[in-house]
């Protein structure tokens, strides 16, 4: 096949004659094409005035378009009040997101842009193939990061963590007697254990001395409290017990480790861990009732404040990321040989495809809270995302099913003959081919989904269209409807057109239909 790609093979050996040349290597005499077959005149004649009907049509259209253009230009230049966009661009972009926190959506946007550029850069270069997995992982993780960034989050302080661990580990309220005394012996136990492990694994004298030194040190630290004879259990006994059990435990660990080759290397890490643990135990281990005292890293911004283009982008990306795997699962379920699973997938897909998106969004807004426990409330934005996800997934499932059915049966049979399990046949052989076949259709579906994000304006969320229509209702901007909705149309047009162009390119590059 395709000898054209390896053109050198097709040439007669030793011959350098190119086709189209006369024998003897002379070029045929060149003549200019007749006048009137090239240039602007010919173009006009061929494309606009090829027949009398066409000529008449052209004249009518020129007059019509000229009139329309004049009207539109007059409006755009003289009458339109573009100030409404200049005055509101912040609101249009970020909606009601708090002013001083706007760096967070900006950073998220930059993150996505960076990832996109990286993806583009890496995927164009076959030699950078090993970077593909990290980038895919980054894409998968990015929604989480962006979500945290936008939503704001708090982290428990080190103090809170240690507080909790200490409480549940030692339950000081249950063992008050031990509680008073537990720190020193615990540290001694830990250090003694590691020291004896080292002792077993390493016979060098210097190392052994170095290992024992901390034990002695901690033991000395324990001395003052050990000498005080208070409480039911003599503290000295506890200290001694901790040291001895630590040493014995460490010795058996050491023997276990001596069977492997990594034992000595592990010891270093054991020392590090136990020293840190000791430090915590001795200094910073307040034990009391566990209380959550988080440190606010980023102030919380409720999703109800997410709006404007920001919300449009969030809705679109989250829906795309969530609906794709769901769509694949539904498609696989629909082509499955198990009747129960197939029937339920068919039911979900057909019902969702049979009703308008707006009814699904309505259902998600109204019924989702009713189907969940009373004390669990989901934000309106998340409900909208849930509705859009199931809707898009059903359509994607149909598209992907088309791809699954287009994969030749021999591929499946060959994969089975190689001994692959059903799971591997699907994930390594069938799905990759099926998905490649339907990339244009998937992109078409995503474009359609992006346009459909406007529907959440109907259920009262302030995405781009929602915020724009609320701007037109302000007294100051009354009568700016056309300007504002033209802006919306331009935004969606640019994004959707870019997506479809990208899809056409991907189609060509992946060779859909040619391989």
């Amino acid at each position, binding site marked *: 096949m395709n000898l054209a790609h390896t053109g050198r093979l097709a040439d007669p050996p030793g011959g350098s004659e190119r086709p189209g040349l006369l024998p003897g290597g002379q070029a045929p005499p060149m003549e200019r094409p007749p006048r009137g077959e090239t240039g602007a005149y010919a173009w006009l004649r061929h494309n606009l005035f090829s027949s009398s009907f066409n000529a008449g*049509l052209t004249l009518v259209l020129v007059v019509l378009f000229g009139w329309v253009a004049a009207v539109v230009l007059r409006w755009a230049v003289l009458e339109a009040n573009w100030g409404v966009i200049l005055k509101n661009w912040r609101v249009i972009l970020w909606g009601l997101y708090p002013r001083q926190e706007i760096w967070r959506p900006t950073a998220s946007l930059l993150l996505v842009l960076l990832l996109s550029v990286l993806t583009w850069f890496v995927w164009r270069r076959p030699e950078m193939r090993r970077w593909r997995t990290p980038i895919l992982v980054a894409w998968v993780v990015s929604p989480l990061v962006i979500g945290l960034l936008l939503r704001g989050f708090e982290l428990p302080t080190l103090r809170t963590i240690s507080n909790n661990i200490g409480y549940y580990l030692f339950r000081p309220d249950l063992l008050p007697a031990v509680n008073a005394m537990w720190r020193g012996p615990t540290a001694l136990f830990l250090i003694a254990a590691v020291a004896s492990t080292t002792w077993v694994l390493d016979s060098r004298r210097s190392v052994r001395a170095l290992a024992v030194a901390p034990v002695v040190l901690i033991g000395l630290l324990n001395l003052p409290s050990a000498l005080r004879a208070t409480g039911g259990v003599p503290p000295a006994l506890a200290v001694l017990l901790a040291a001895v059990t630590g040493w014995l435990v460490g010795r058996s660990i050491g023997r276990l480790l001596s069977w492997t080759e990594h034992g000595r290397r592990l010891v270093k890490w054991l020392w590090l861990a136990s020293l840190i643990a000791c430090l915590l135990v001795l200094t910073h281990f307040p034990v009391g009732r566990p209380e959550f005292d988080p440190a606010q890293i980023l102030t919380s911004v409720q999703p109800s404040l997410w709006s404007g283009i920001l919300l449009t982008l969030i809705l679109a990306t989250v829906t795309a990321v969530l609906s794709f795997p769901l769509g694949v699962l539904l498609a696989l379920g629909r082509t499955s040989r198990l009747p129960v699973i197939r029937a339920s997938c068919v039911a979900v897909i057909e019902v969702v*495809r049979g009703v308008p998106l707006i009814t699904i969004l309505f259902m998600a807004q109204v019924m989702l809270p009713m189907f969940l*426990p009373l004390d669990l409330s989901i934000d309106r934005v998340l409900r909208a995302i849930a509705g859009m996800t199931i809707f898009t997934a059903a359509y994607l499932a149909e598209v992907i099913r088309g791809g699954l059915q287009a994969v030749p049966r021999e591929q499946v049979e060959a994969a089975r003959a190689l001994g692959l399990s059903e799971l591997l046949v699907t994930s390594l052989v069938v799905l990759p081919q099926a998905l490649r076949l339907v990339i244009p259709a998937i992109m078409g579906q995503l474009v359609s989904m992006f346009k459909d994000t406007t529907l959440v304006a109907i259920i009262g969320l302030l995405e781009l269209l929602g915020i724009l229509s609320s701007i037109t209702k302000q007294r100051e901007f009354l009568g700016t409807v056309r300007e504002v*909705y033209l802006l919306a149309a331009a935004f969606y047009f640019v994004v959707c057109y870019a997506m479809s162009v990208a899809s056409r390119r991907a189609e060509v590059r992946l060779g859909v239909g040619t391989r």
Partner: protein
Amino acid sequence: MARSPSRSFEPFWRDVRVLRVAGQIAFTLAALAVAAWLVSNLNQALEARGLDLSFSFLRRTAGFAITQGPGMVRTDPYWKAFLVGLANSLSVILAGLVLTTLIGLLAGIALLSPNWLLRNAARTYVEVIRNTPLLVQLFFIYFGVVLTMPSLQDRLELGPVILSQRGVWLPRPVPQDGYPIWLASVAVGLALGVWAYTRRERRRRLTGEETRPFLSALALIVGLPLLGWIVLPEPPLSFETAVLDGLRMVGGLRMTPEFFALLLGLVLYTGAFIADIVRAGILAVAHGQREAARSLGLSEGNVLRLVVLPQSMRVVIPPLTNQYLNLAKNSSLAFGIGYLDLYAVSQIIFNQSGQAVQVIALLMATYLALSLLISVVMNWFNRRMAIPGR
């Protein structure tokens, strides 16, 4: 289960057949468990809100009036409001289906025109409309165009069509004395036309004689009513245009601004998609087919009717069905511009009664039935168009 010797020592948990059944049972149980959990939550929520699941609330008085379409008054029950919404939806869907097919056909042919200007104008229309959301278009048309049209006093009169921000008036046909007779001539013409078509078509098939069945049928179907119109002493139908009477328009066929905007938006939007389908359908017929038909001596019209159209129809109808379904579903965006269609009325009923579950069930069932109806009709059409034996 037949036990072959090689299977006898294979444990049952590795037997694919057992696993399949077990997997499905597990799936069913899990699904049932989730469903039970959801239903119990629903019951709690309903109890907390003092609601039930019966449909008897539909008989209660609605308390709101609808002036669009067939209309209803405040004292009518909910079910009537629902039906009025359904009627409004159906009217916009039916009108939309017819008009969008026309627009799509014209734009699709324009996409293949040899005239550069027309071709690119059509391409621009298709790309711009397809790449912007329908809701934005509807908002633009309704708030930006229809509502900013001149008031009734300065109404725009394009011949018999009257445009204003209060609505669009078309001339209304009013039957006159001779109307029944004329209607009869239409019916007779139609019947004779069908009869002539089948007869002549059969003769053409049997003898190969060129009988022009289509043309003769067309002549009968158009000719007889035309004859009736001319022969009758006065025209059987007169067209009544609306006139301003004080502050309101009298007569004519009124389209509310909402209906007009929704219809225009739906038709333009779906038409752009249909245009591309038509274009693809025409291009899908192999060039050789056309050439072969011509070399058989078929006339241009017959080439189109007998060779090109039947084949492109097969390509066109399935995606066309999808677009028809989309138009029907997209008509629910009416709510955004205040047209009281099925969805908008359901939303109002829900707001008033709070009966979420029943309203949504009714709404979804109605839309599903509507979608099913369109698919059934189009599938029937598709089967008729399919070339037998392939």
